[in-house]
């Protein structure tokens, strides 16, 4: 009992008592993946810190590396250890091999360092978002990934601002001739997400006509009216403001008939919920990936808000699925080989 209290007090001993409730294979895998990717970011970040003499970049990389060392690695390690899995050894720090700036013989320019770090932080951001989408056993585990995702987004934002200030990046050419116009990548990801929202609306409206379950209808209605439609409108407005003609919306097929069937073909509630959960995981992945192509502040803010709306929706879906046993959760696994 004392040990448990001690574990809760000490900052390095983060635990969610996963030994009592085994995690599923996806949760273990994403914890491992997030942990090993964190080690890689530290390795590369420290090597680059030794490769530049620029004090601003030293400070920036040091902050990034320390954030990963203090806020990511201990949490992830402890969750895996608590579940009975050994964790990989921590690599030795590169900063003891000399003073910052010592590694100057094979030169990387500071801009190149920033470009590589931006790509690596994007890959970490995508991994964290996948972790959020996968964690279904325990809300606290999803909470850990959400927390990590928020911090990675902050780091990615900071790299974006810092690198853009030094013109380190080469964004795709502007999509239109007007000053401050969106670049090709920004237009593409907005258009892509708009198309995805159209499919979401078609599916949700069909499924709403297919179920009589009040709780499921509430969740589907939330997805339709609080997520899909508002996001579609924001995407349309942003594209229209930039001078693009947006595609026509799908026709509405709500209230065509008494609730309870889609045509005459019936889907079970668990089938509907599984499809909607997968679609929400895909949408989250889509939003997270798109942050890598977006340089303009207002569009980044828009997509970030989509990410957190999607996470909130996923929480609602998983809560209902767990309560009613409607989900097909990946198998629980243990380290007992």
């Amino acid at each position, binding site marked *: 009992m004392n040990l448990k209290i001690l574990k809760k007090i000490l900052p390095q001993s983060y635990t969610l008592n996963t030994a009592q409730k*085994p995690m599923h294979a996806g949760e273990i895998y994403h914890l491992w993946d997030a942990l090993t990717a964190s080690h890689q970011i530290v390795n590369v970040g420290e090597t680059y810190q030794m490769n530049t003499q620029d004090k601003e970049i030293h400070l920036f990389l040091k902050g990034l590396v320390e954030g990963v060392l203090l806020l990511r690695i201990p949490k992830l390690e402890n969750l895996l250890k608590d579940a009975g899995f050994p964790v990989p050894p921590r690599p030795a720090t590169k900063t003891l091999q000399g003073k910052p700036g010592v590694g100057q013989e094979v030169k990387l320019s500071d801009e190149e360092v920033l470009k590589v770090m931006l790509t690596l932080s994007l890959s970490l951001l995508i991994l964290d978002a996948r972790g959020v989408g996968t964690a279904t056993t325990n809300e606290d585990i999803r909470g850990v990934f959400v927390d990590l995702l928020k911090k990675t987004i902050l780091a990615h934002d900071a790299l974006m601002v810092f690198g853009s200030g030094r013109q380190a990046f080469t964004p795709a050419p502007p999509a239109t001739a007007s000053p401050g116009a969106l670049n090709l990548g920004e237009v593409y990801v907005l258009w892509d997400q708009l198309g995805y929202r159209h499919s979401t609306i078609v599916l949700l409206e069909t499924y709403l006509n297919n179920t009589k379950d009040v709780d499921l209808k509430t969740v589907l209605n939330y997805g339709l009216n609080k997520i899909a439609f508002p996001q579609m409108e924001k995407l349309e407005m942003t594209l229209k403001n930039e001078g693009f003609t947006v595609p026509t919306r799908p026709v509405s097929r709500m209230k065509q008939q008494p609730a309870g069937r889609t045509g005459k073909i019936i889907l079970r509630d668990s089938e509907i919920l599984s499809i909607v959960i997968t679609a929400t995981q895909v949408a989250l992945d889509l939003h997270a990936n798109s942050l890598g192509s977006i340089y303009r502040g207002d569009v980044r803010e828009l997509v970030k808000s989509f990410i957190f709306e999607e996470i909130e929706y996923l929480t609602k879906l998983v809560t209902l699925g767990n309560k009613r046993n409607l989900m097909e959760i990946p198998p629980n696994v243990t380290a007992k080989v």
Partner: protein
Amino acid sequence: MQFKILKKILPSSYTLNTAQKPMHSGEIYHLWESLTASHQLINSLETFQMNTDDKNMHQLIQDFTASIRKQRIPKLEGLLKDAGFTVPPRTATKTLQGKPGVGTEVILSDEEIIKVMFNLSSALINLDGRAIGTVTTKESIRDLFITLLKQDMKEHEAIIFIGKSRQAFIQLPLAVSEPNGPTIGDAYWLWSEMEFYRSSSIILLESYISNTNDKELKKILEHGLYKIAYPQLSKVEQTLKAAGFTVPPRPVTRMHQRPPGVIGQITLSDSEVTNVIITASQFLLNQHIRAYSATFKDEYRLIFKSFIMEEIDNIKRLYGLGKTRNLMLTPPQVTSKKG
């Protein structure tokens, strides 16, 4: 013994003897994910099949569901069961609820169905790609996912073919005034691929080749640099230039600056180098797959498809070396045993 032989002969009892060699958590997860996504896809597709009266649509949907039923589900189920895991129940077919076309009270247009199918098949291809990048325990498991990926690509192309012939897709405007030029989406993906090579792959590979004395690791890194990164970079640069885009100058090359073995004075271990390169390869495979599944133009899709196959080949080489030399940090092996 006889039971084992029987299992090998019967088509629905696909096995790779995973009971003898436990898989890691990522492999179990991706097998499960791929299996449940297959069930979900069948549910959606069969509902759509009942929703349309068009014979070509019936054919397209039936081909897709038949390939999932015969090629994907039994193999994925067999592997999970062999490893001691219980698989989810198969869902009942929707096609027994009436004749195709019966479910037309809440009408979906065929174009809407095609668009949704396009999104669903893209999602499945993405899942397969992630699985390929994850599998490390046995090559035969990776080969299974590669076969599934190829099959899904065929279905995806069939959806694009029928969708284009019916003008079902609303494509982005053209990026240039040339009528056969790339759309904004195509131009973005070509640019994005070019930037990834320039700003990450080539820089990392060149730095790491200077960082190691290990001949085999150098050989693999050089393969990545000279047989994949540079040729693919040239390909996308030429395609962009042919479409009328000015491409920015390439980054400086830092090869042969000094005797190999050190990056500056800061050394990374070979295992650290291998792991960073593997993560970068997984990320790159994900990029190629997203580019492939996003474009409607055959010419560009072929380019991205060849990049996908080359990257898979590179991942195989990296994992081959990583395993023989114990350079990789593989996810923990897991079982269904409790208590």
